[in-house]
Structures are given as C-alpha cells and as structure tokens.
C-alpha cells in the first residue's frame, strides 16, 4: 500500500527517465538527505562524527569505487587501498606545491592522479582476466606503497613517508570541528554517489555490464573493450583516490603509506561483497556493516563472556573479529550472493503488497 507505483503516470521522457522514477523513492531520498545534512549535525556527538560517521562515508565512497570496477565492469581488484593512498598523497602534494589551490580542486587533482595510475595498472586487464588480473592488481598494492615509502619527494622528505595534511580551508574559512568536516565529506560523497548512480545507467554503465557478463559477446555487439575497461579502471580509481584524500584530510589528518595496506583493500572488498556486488546502495550498506561489526563485537563479546563465565583475553577479541569476518563472508556468498542490497530489494517487493497477502 505504502510503496506502490500504481497511478504514477509519466507524460514526458524526462519524467520517465529520472533517477528515482517512483515518488516514494524520491521522498525517501530527500528525507534521508535532510536527516544527514540537518538532523545528524544537531543530534550526533563528537565521538559519532569522528569515529563512525566520517569513516563510514569515506569507506562507502571507496567501496563505491571498487563496486564500479568489480560489480559493474567485472574486473576484480585487490589494490583499492593503494589507489586511496595515491589520492591522499597526490592531494597533499598539490596543496603543498601549488600556492593557493582550493581544497576541492586538490581533492579532484588527487582523484585524477589516482585515475591515471589506475589506467596504468588497468592496462594488463586488456590481456588477462579473472584470477590472473586479481593477482596482477596486487602488484599495484605493493608497488605503490613501496614507492610512497621510498621516494622522499612524495612525502616532502618526511621520515618513512608520514604526511600531516594541511589545514582544511574552504572559501577562506577553516574547517576544524568534526561537524564541519562531516558536512564536507557528506557533500562530496552525495554528489559522487548520485553521479555514479547516473553513470551506471548510461551508455558507459551498460557497456561495463556487458563486458562483465561476457566480454567476447560485448565486443561482438560493438563495444570497444579497451576504452571501456580502462574507463572503468579510471573512474573506479578516481573514486578511490578522492576517498583516500578525504581519509587523509578529514579523518586521520596524518597518514603513512603502510596504513593503506592489503588488509584495507580486503576490507573494502568485503564491504561490497556483504553490501551487494553491483549496487550503489550496497556500497553504503556494506561499509556501515563492516565498520559497525567490530564496534559491536567489542561491546558484545566481553558481555557474553561474563554471561557464561568464560575467561577472556583481549587478544581473543581480535581473533574472534577476524573469524567472524571470514565466516560472514562465506555465509553471505552462500546464502545471499547479492548482499544486503538484495535484502532491501526483497523488502521493497513485500512493501508493495503490504498489508495484503497478494
């Protein structure tokens, strides 16, 4: 009853092709944005901003980037953290070396640098695919982190490559409270998510999906594989690069190359598996899930241990976390390969009929 598209007639192409064709969806998205932009800043505490909301948005953006490459274009990548590192270091260097470059411009430049590096490491995808490609992207992961550690110029000659980011200046105003940083990150993420949502239903997005489903067939129907695949690498790395720049500037403030480890790449991969491969919304759901799970376990495990009177060491908590991560990945792949986004879809189907059974 509540969620029904019946009676919503479209009388123009523009109305038919809009991003959210169902009225309830539009209202829902607007309410969500209103809550995120207005409600959350009023209600949330400092801890929530700096420990949960900001990293959630940043990782959702990175997961979105990986989802474009893996979920839509079908090229598995294990090097997303490295592209985040490129974005972070490039944005830092643009701020450092070009006097008076606006903050947003340096984020974009960081993203573009990551895109260029992404194209470079995407080149092998023209010759190899599947597992070979996944392993090849590991080359990006190790090589980029090594470069950032070993070339002192990239980190402005600091020891072991640690950089401390510059002040966040936006239109002559310095952002230093968590709320302001949150709003900046939120604004960027919303714009980029809407852009992605639009992109995946455009010619480009459809070409990506054709390549994902069967690349030989795609090339037979006239999709040029090389530009399509490389564009997927470029766009995906751009998203990861911007996420990396935000990670350095708005979340941590000081990063080292080793922070962008293989572990982080896997974490981003897990986000899209659990959230939903090939779904924009899934990236957000997955990021929320993966970030909240450790916090939840930290709280729940000692409580459970006390309940059953078990001896408990803090090392065990981290082991259980790893174990639960692994088990959940297998569980989701077996039970719901399309992730949380699919569950949301099923819920919507049910909502269309509710409260009637048929």
């Amino acid at each position, binding site marked *: 009853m509540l969620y029904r598209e019946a009676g919503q007639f479209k009388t123009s192409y523009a109305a038919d092709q809009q991003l959210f064709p169902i009225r309830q969806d539009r209202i829902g998205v607007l309410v969500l944005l209103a809550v995120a932009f207005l409600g959350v800043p009023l209600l949330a505490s400092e801890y929530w901003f700096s420990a949960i909301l900001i990293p959630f948005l940043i990782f959702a953006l990175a997961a979105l980037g990986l989802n474009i490459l893996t979920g839509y274009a079908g090229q*598995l990548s294990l090097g997303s953290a490295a592209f985040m590192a490129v974005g972070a270091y490039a944005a830092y260097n643009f701020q450092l070396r070009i006097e008076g470059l606006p903050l947003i411009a340096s984020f974009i430049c960081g993203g573009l640098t990551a895109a260029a590096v992404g194209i470079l490491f995407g*080149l*092998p995808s023209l*010759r*190899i695919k*599947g*597992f*070979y490609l*996944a*392993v*090849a992207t*590991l*080359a990006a992961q*190790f*090589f980029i982190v*090594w470069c950032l*550690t*070993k*070339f*002192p110029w990239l980190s402005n000659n600091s020891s072991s490559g640690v950089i401390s980011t510059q002040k966040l200046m936006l239109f002559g105003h310095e952002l230093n409270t968590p709320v302001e940083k949150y709003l900046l990150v939120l604004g960027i993420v919303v714009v980029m998510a809407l852009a992605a949502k639009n992109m995946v239903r455009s010619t480009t997005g459809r070409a990506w999906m054709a390549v994902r489903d*069967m690349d*030989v*067939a795609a090339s*037979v129907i006239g999709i040029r594989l090389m530009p399509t695949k490389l564009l997927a690498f470029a766009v995906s790395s751009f998203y990861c690069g911007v996420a990396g720049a935000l990670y350095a500037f708005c979340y941590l403030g000081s990063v080292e190359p080793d922070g962008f480890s*293989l572990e982080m790449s*896997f974490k981003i*991969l897990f986000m899209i*598996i659990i959230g939903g491969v090939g779904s924009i919304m899934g990236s957000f759901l997955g990021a929320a899930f993966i970030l909240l799970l450790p916090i939840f376990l930290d709280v729940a495990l000692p409580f459970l241990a006390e309940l059953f009177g078990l001896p408990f060491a803090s*090392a*065990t908590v981290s*082991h*259980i*976390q*790893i*174990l*639960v*991560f*692994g*088990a*959940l*990945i*297998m569980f989701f*792949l*077996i039970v719901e*390969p399309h992730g949380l986004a699919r569950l949301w879809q099923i819920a919507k189907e049910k909502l269309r009929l509710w409260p009637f059974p048929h």
Partner: protein
Amino acid sequence: MNFFLEVLIGGLLSGVMYALVALGFVLIYKASGVFNFAQGAMVYLAALSVVGVMEKGAPLWLAVILAFVIMTLFGIATEKFVLRKLVNQPPIALFMATIGLAFFIEGLAPMIFGSEPRALELGIVDEPIPWILDNWNMVISKFDLVAAGVASVLVATLALFFQYTRIGRALRAVADDHQAALSIGIPLQHIWAIVWGVAGFVALVAGMMWGARNGVQFALTFTALKALPVLILGGFTSVPGAIVGGLIIGASEKLAEIYIPPVMQDLFGGNFGGIEGWFPYVLALLFLLVRPEGLFGERHIDRV
C-alpha cells in the same frame, strides 16, 4: 662472480620454498577450478597444529600425523560446508569465499593453539655448508638444501601418485572435465575431499619447512602472497609451472634485491631496499603481457 653465484643459488633455493606453497594452489585449482586464497592460511594452520600438539608433550612424528589428520578433516569440512554450497557460482565468487575462509582460519587457529611466535625444531640447522664455504667461499645454507630435497621428493611422490594410482587417475580425469568424469562414475565429491586432503598435506610440508626456518607465527600466512606471482608466472594449472616459476621468481627476486637498489640510489639518492616485496609481481605482470596464460598454462579460447 662467486658472489653472483651465491646469490643465484640462494635465490633458487628460496624459490623452491615458494614453489612448495604454490603447489598447493595448483592442486586445488586443477581439480576443482577453485583459486584457493586460503592456502597461505592453511600453511599457518598446519604449522601451528604441529607446534601446538608438540607443546602438549607429543613427539614430532605424532604431532605431524595429528596435524595431517587435522588438515584432512579441515579440508573435508571446507568442501562439505562451503564449496559444495557454492557449486555453479561464478569462479570469482568461489575465490572471494576462499578469502573469507582464509580470514576464518587466521582467526580460528590462534584461538586454539595460541598466537605467540614459536620455534619449530626439525633437527636441521640453518648454517652454511663448510665444504662449499672452504672450497668456493660461498655461503649455501644446509637447511635450504634439505628443503629443496624435501620439495623434490614431494613433487616426485605427487607425480607418481597422479600417474600410477587409481585415485590419481580419477583426479586427473576430474581436472580435465568434471562432467565427463561424473558420467563415467567417478564420485566427484570424494575426489574433491581427497584433493583438499592432499592440498592440506602440501600445506603441512610447506608449513613445517617455513615454520622451522622463520618460526611459527602469523607471518606464515603471507607465504601465499609470495606464491601468487609464482603461480601467474608458471600458470595456474601446471605442477612443473609452479616449480619452474618458483625458481625463476626466487632467483630474480634475490638478484634484483642485490643489484637494482644501488643503481636507483645513484639515480635518485636515498635508500631503495625492500624491492623483494613487489618485484615478483611486476615481473610476473610484465611476463603476462607477453604470454597471458603463463609459462605452462593452458591456452584459453573463448567461444560466443
């Protein structure tokens, strides 16, 4: 020249250690088409269970047998509870499931056996062979030589097993064509359980060699990362490929570590050590651009 040879031989011998891990990947990939990212975690689990059982007071031989039992049971459980449920899924989904499996093991193993690094004594000392040191002034580790010997015995045994036993023939049949194998009455699921058992055995051998050398610790799981470039160089489906790939990667990585950083230092200044971490990957990547199926891999022809 002596120094070059010393580095080369040292590299070849460490390449054998990489090949030991790569072998486990190849076995499972050949028989079931699963790219098992958890092989490194299995190496860790195997080494940890040997050490863990020995700590309870068991002698080495008993610990090895028990560890083998654990690995086999583990392999069968994996097949039954994870892979069988994922039949008909795209290979990438299976690959991601094995990443999950790797995390699962990395959490589970230290909970059972403890996470602190421990030494594993096999009774072989890691010291240069005096005879070679005296005559040619080269440092060749005794331990590396033994490891190479063990690896060759293992490969020979596996080759014989695949070639001459009934199970080996069934394994090869399954590797060639699942459906054809099923249609002539080979029980696919038993075969997969056996393959996981054999891969567990290879992991056990690799785990004991690596564990005795570097200590039994979490870093053992990273052996998988060393084996991956070996695999793409040698081809996922070829046992000789794993061996040759391991030798090439081992030798070139050690040579690169010695000879490239000074050159880069002259060019850019600064310290450029630690090339080992990425050099094998870049080497394998460049190689793939020329020959996408690896050295001994099967050429793949797509049909629409």
